[in-house]
């Protein structure tokens, strides 16, 4: 868009507002000065202002997810140059539990897994993901998370989503994964108490192990300031080479090179829902998944080569 169109747009918008139109109508009128695709984007934003959009019962808003896609596409293609292996192994329809390693303080890995499925899967669909609870205390972040498919990390949410035949991404390492120091990168933490396996067994969902390489270098955590963390109520307060040194700029993740591998799904339906009450089975499956992801992490680290080039 050149300056002349921008000025023309602003002029029409001003004229509309001065003649007593409401903002949405004035925007629509101003949009006539814009090229076609910009006009479409603007019209969509206007529709949103009017309340003319829809969310599902989880607050997921496909329009919003599409609106923000260019930003994530930029991260996916240019910033992190994500390579994807095995996307076709993810079930194309019906329920499925994506289980991945977790790193990087903010849930960038979840967004990149979504992008990978939207880009590389023959039947693209938006996965839903369980997000660390404290994200839902925060303004803007909480509502944005929800609109792109994040839900509070509660087993009840995961069960209901799977019963509705969604694809659900979980990070069993939880906060232990995102908060681990740089020196422990790619070393999987304990997988909770195997709750994700119980959920898969109860709903008969296949578990798809996912190995994400690259996410563990974006915020190299050198130290933790637990006193500050307690003060602001977050689970940790990381010190990275850029944060808090550069202030808000420190949130910009480092441009490491990423590689995401989707492994062969582990079928769970044959154990039946009673399997969920079998401690030994749950722990064994949990350990098997963890082991597979760990192996895949090492293999993909080698395949990716140097972290930043």
């Amino acid at each position, binding site marked *: 868009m050149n300056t002349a169109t921008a000025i023309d747009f602003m002029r029409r918008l001003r004229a509309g507002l001065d003649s007593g139109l409401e903002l949405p109508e004035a925007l629509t009128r101003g949009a006539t000065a814009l090229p076609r695709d910009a006009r479409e984007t603007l019209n969509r934003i206007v529709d949103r*202002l*009017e*309340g003319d*959009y*829809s*969310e*599902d*019962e*989880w*607050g997921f*808003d496909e329009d919003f997810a599409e609106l923000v896609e260019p930003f994530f596409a930029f991260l996916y293609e240019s910033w992190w140059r994500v390579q994807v292996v095995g996307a076709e192994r993810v079930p194309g329809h019906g329920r499925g539990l994506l289980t991945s390693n977790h790193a990087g303080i903010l849930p960038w890995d979840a967004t990149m897994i979504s992008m990978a499925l939207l880009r590389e899967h023959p039947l693209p669909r938006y996965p839903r993901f369980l997000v660390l*609870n404290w994200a*839902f*205390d*925060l*303004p*803007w*972040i*909480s*509502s944005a998370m*929800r*609109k792109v498919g994040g*839900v*509070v990390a*509660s087993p*009840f*949410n995961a069960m*209901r989503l799977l019963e509705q035949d969604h694809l659900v991404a979980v990070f069993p390492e939880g906060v232990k994964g995102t908060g681990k120091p740089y020196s422990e990168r790619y070393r999987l933490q304990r997988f909770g108490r195997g709750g994700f396996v119980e959920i898969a067994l109860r709903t008969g969902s296949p578990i798809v192990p996912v190995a994400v390489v690259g996410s563990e270098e974006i915020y190299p955590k050198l130290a933790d300031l637990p006193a500050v963390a307690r003060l602001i109520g977050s689970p940790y307060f990381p010190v990275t080479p850029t944060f808090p040194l550069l202030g808000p700029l420190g949130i910009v993740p480092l441009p490491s090179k990423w590689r995401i591998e989707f492994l062969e799904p582990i079928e769970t339906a044959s154990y039946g829902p009673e399997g969920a009450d079998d401690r030994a089975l749950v722990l064994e499956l949990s350990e098997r998944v963890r082991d597979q992801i760990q192996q895949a992490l090492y293999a993909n680290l080698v395949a990716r080569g140097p972290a930043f080039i």
Partner: protein
Amino acid sequence: MAGRRVLITGVGSHVGSLLAQRLERDPEVEHVAGLDTRRPKVALERTELIEADTRDPEIARLIPPTGADTLVHEQIVRQPGPGMSSRAMHDVNVIGTLQLLAACERTPTLRTIVVRGSAGVYGAEPHAPQFFKEEMARLFPLRTRFQRDVAEIENYFDTYARRHSAVSCTMLRYQPAIGRGLRTQMTRYLSQPVCPAFMGFDPRIQLVDIDDALEALVAAVWNPVRGAVNVACPGTIGLARMIRLAGKRALPIAAPLFGAVTSTGRRLGLDTQSDDFERLLHYGRGVDTRRLTEEVGYTPRRTTSEAVESWAEEAKAAA
């Protein structure tokens, strides 16, 4: 079996009046009695009105002669209105329920109790599962007075039901209602020129349409289920979208200032919200309605968005 004999407390409330009217017209219902100090909101034909307060021990003498086999408890205050202290609300809710249960002890004909309680018992929490099931009432601490009231009411009925195995007791947990003619915190909130909202939050709100609220109550009278049942229209709606559909504008206020701004508004005589409602505006709440559909056998006719849309259309037409 002869027709049902139903006693409704709080028959002067909007939903109470409509329920009495609805049951009056049902030939299977032999007798309807309504207990309240207020007049019913609609004209009733054959409802026997008993003018008494549930807080008054006198009701233990007034209720047994009705020979009621069904009690619908509707006398629960959701928000202290103008001129009502929160202590008075607590009295109506808790002491009223206690007196009522004392009267029930003396009414041997009683077989069914239906309580129109509130989903407020779950609270509104940032870390809550997105859909509360009935067994999750105590997932979080009870934070507000109203929440503690509802929990206490449920407790009393629970104890009563355990001691009287012949009586089946249904605790309906209602999400906030919306619909024509109804004045609730939600409709008042949406009727303001601007709607104060928490900056940066867009909570999921779930409502129940007035028609569905009434029909669910009737369904529970005919098909009583023991224990708690959530009542809501399926689906949720983002607060921002709900305000837009109502043709209003949100006034975003940063969370730490919200209390200060609304209490200033209160002093200036503007409409106020209860603590519960404020938490709802902050974090929202959804409930799972499978039990209502599968066990009580009632499927709401509208979704939450449809309920808001039809309310907004009627509000516009009336204005």
